[in-house]
């Protein structure tokens, strides 16, 4: 007999206080002799003694009505469905009542039955209920009737599958699982675990670095690692050698100055000018007129200071003369062909030069040179070069004529010629045959002012004309020219 049994008997006897009943309920929950449903609601708070009696009957510990049978029936219902039913063949109610009417089998007397019938209560059901409580006979009845009980829960599980109610509920409620750490922090607050651990130690934590330093002193870790300073530059140079940083940083930054200048400025071939004047054959080029104007001027200036070049130039001139003489002797005189060619190319007067009057150059040279006595020089040269040996002149002594009018006649002729020429110079201009100054302009030379010798200080002109001033150049070759354009 367990404690639960004893407590149930005590409660059934009417001696069940509240603590006893509570204690019985607690033990009832874990009593496996009873079905689970009966464990939870086996003890009725309103009539605990009746419930206790019923439980005793189910447990087979009650000697009252249906002693043992009710318990067997209840246990058979609480067991599995395959559990066979009662050992005995099912009794009819009459048989049951017949058994029950046995005085040694049934605790209920006839008087009790009569009293119950008088009250209108089905005595059996009430007795059973009073003794057994509210047993669930459905399963055994269904089994006896041949109806397989349906495991509704299993059926629902098979249909619905695993249902995570918690997640469904949480989802439905919209509750989010709180992160653990914030939840902990929310609950616990800021907890310095280290301090919490150390605090119970009851001592102030020493800073580790200060502790080490106080013990070991200042430690130059770098010096310990590197005992001697390393010349980084020397090390790098030893490993890499001399590195041309400029070439390494800008390997392709050479600036082609010549190309840049040439791209900006046009091609200027200075050597063709300068070099031409100083090539080994520049003297020959100067003699033959093959140099450019600039090179010619350079060569001419150099010729004035270079004596050897002057000698060479003279040699070229001599060679030219000898060559022409040899060619002429060998080939003969060159026929004059211009007179035959000129008419064929449309030149009517081959000897006429446009802009030049015949004899103008000769007269200009004569005016410039003045009177040049060449006769004596020519005669001296002719006499000097002649190799002829002349016989001494034979002087014939003749008597002087008594009368010699030769010089008188010659003098008169000369005087007459002079008179005629003077008269011609005076009369011809008057006759319009010779313009004044026929032999040229005034005796005074016309010298045009160069730059710096003439200046236009004021200039005004009519609205119907236009004036353009050309200033003179430094050399005086170009005069000051004030040009009036009357065609505006």
């Amino acid at each position, binding site marked *: 007999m367990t404690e639960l049994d004893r407590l149930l008997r005590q409660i059934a006897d009417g001696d069940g206080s509240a603590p006893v009943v509570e204690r019985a309920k607690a033990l009832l929950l874990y009593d496996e002799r009873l079905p689970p449903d009966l464990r939870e609601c086996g003890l009725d708070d309103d009539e605990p003694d009746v419930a206790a009696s019923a439980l005793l009957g189910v447990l087979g510990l009650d000697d009252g009505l249906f002693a043992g049978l009710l318990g067997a029936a209840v246990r058979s219902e609480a067991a599995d469905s395959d559990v066979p039913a009662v050992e005995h063949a099912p009794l009819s109610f009459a048989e049951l009542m017949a058994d029950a009417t046995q005085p040694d089998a049934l605790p209920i007397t006839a008087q009790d039955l009569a009293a119950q019938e008088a009250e209108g209560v089905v005595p059996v059901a009430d007795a059973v209920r009073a003794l057994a409580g509210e047993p669930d006979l459905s399963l055994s009845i269904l089994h006896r009737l041949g109806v397989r009980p349906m495991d509704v829960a299993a059926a629902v599980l098979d249909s619905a599958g695993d249902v995570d109610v918690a997640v469904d509920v949480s989802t439905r409620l919209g509750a989010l699982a709180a992160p653990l750490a914030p939840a902990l922090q929310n609950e616990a607050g800021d907890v310095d675990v280290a301090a919490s651990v150390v605090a119970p130690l009851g001592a102030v934590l020493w800073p580790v670095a200060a502790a080490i330093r106080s013990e070991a002193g200042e430690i130059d870790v770098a010096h310990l690692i590197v005992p001697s300073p390393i010349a980084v530059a020397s090390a790098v140079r030893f490993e890499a050698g001399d590195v041309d940083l400029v070439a390494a940083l800008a390997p392709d930054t050479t600036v082609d100055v010549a190309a840049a200048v040439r791209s900006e400025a046009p091609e200027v071939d200075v050597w063709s000018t300068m070099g031409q004047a100083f090539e080994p054959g520049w003297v020959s080029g100067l003699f033959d007129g093959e140099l450019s104007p600039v090179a010619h001027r350079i060569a001419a200036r150099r010729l004035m200071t270079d004596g050897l070049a002057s000698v060479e130039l003279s040699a070229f001139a001599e060679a030219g003369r000898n060559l022409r003489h040899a060619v002429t002797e060998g080939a003969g005189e060159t026929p004059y062909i211009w007179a035959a060619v000129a008419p064929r190319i449309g030149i009517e007067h081959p000897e006429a030069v446009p802009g030049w009057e015949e004899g103008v150059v000769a007269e200009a040279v004569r005016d410039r040179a003045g009177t040049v006595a060449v006769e004596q020089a020519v005669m001296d040269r002719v006499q000097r070069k002649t190799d002829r040996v002349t016989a001494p002149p034979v002087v014939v002594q003749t008597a002087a004529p008594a009368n010699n009018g030769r010089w008188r006649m010659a003098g008169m002729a000369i005087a007459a010629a002079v008179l005629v020429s003077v008269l011609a110079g005076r009369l011809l201009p008057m006759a319009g045959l010779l313009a004044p100054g026929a032999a040229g302009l005034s005796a005074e030379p016309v010298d045009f002012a160069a730059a710096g010798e003439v200046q236009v200080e004021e200039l005004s002109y*009519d609205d119907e004309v236009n004036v353009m001033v050309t200033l003179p150049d430094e050399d005086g070759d170009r005069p000051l020219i004030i040009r009036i354009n*009357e065609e505006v």
Partner: protein
Amino acid sequence: MTPRRSIFRTLRLIAIAILAGVLVQPAFAQGRPPPRRPAPAAPTAAPISGDVEIEVMVVHGTDSHSKVDARLKPILQYLRFMPHTGYSLLSQDDHKMGVGGDHTFPVVGNRRIEVELIHRDAKQARIRIRMFSGKAKTVETVIAVHRNKSFIITGPKHDNGELILAFTARY
């Protein structure tokens, strides 16, 4: 000496005399002998007359021909700056004037040139030139030119060409 040789000698002397007479004609053809001026050793040392002789040479330039007047030999080298092929001397005139004085030079084509001497010193002369075509004044200019130097005013139209005026201040 044989008579033939003496005749040739005489004829040669006559020819020389004639040639000498021709060559000295310019000194007499203008009506008065040219002034004999000694070559100045330095401009400051030369005697300076109070008057200035303004000389105006009128030349006709044209493209209708390509002949150049022989009398223009002294200025032939300067004519190359002119845009013509043929040149002829039309007139040459000069006039002496003192400071403040003026003179009018007649020019072909109903034109005239008034020249006024404004200032004169040892180095240069300042002259005012007014050019008229008929009664209308076309150009007026003041030019400072060194002693015995010349300049050109050109452009007035004449006879299918233009006039080239060369001015010279002599003193």
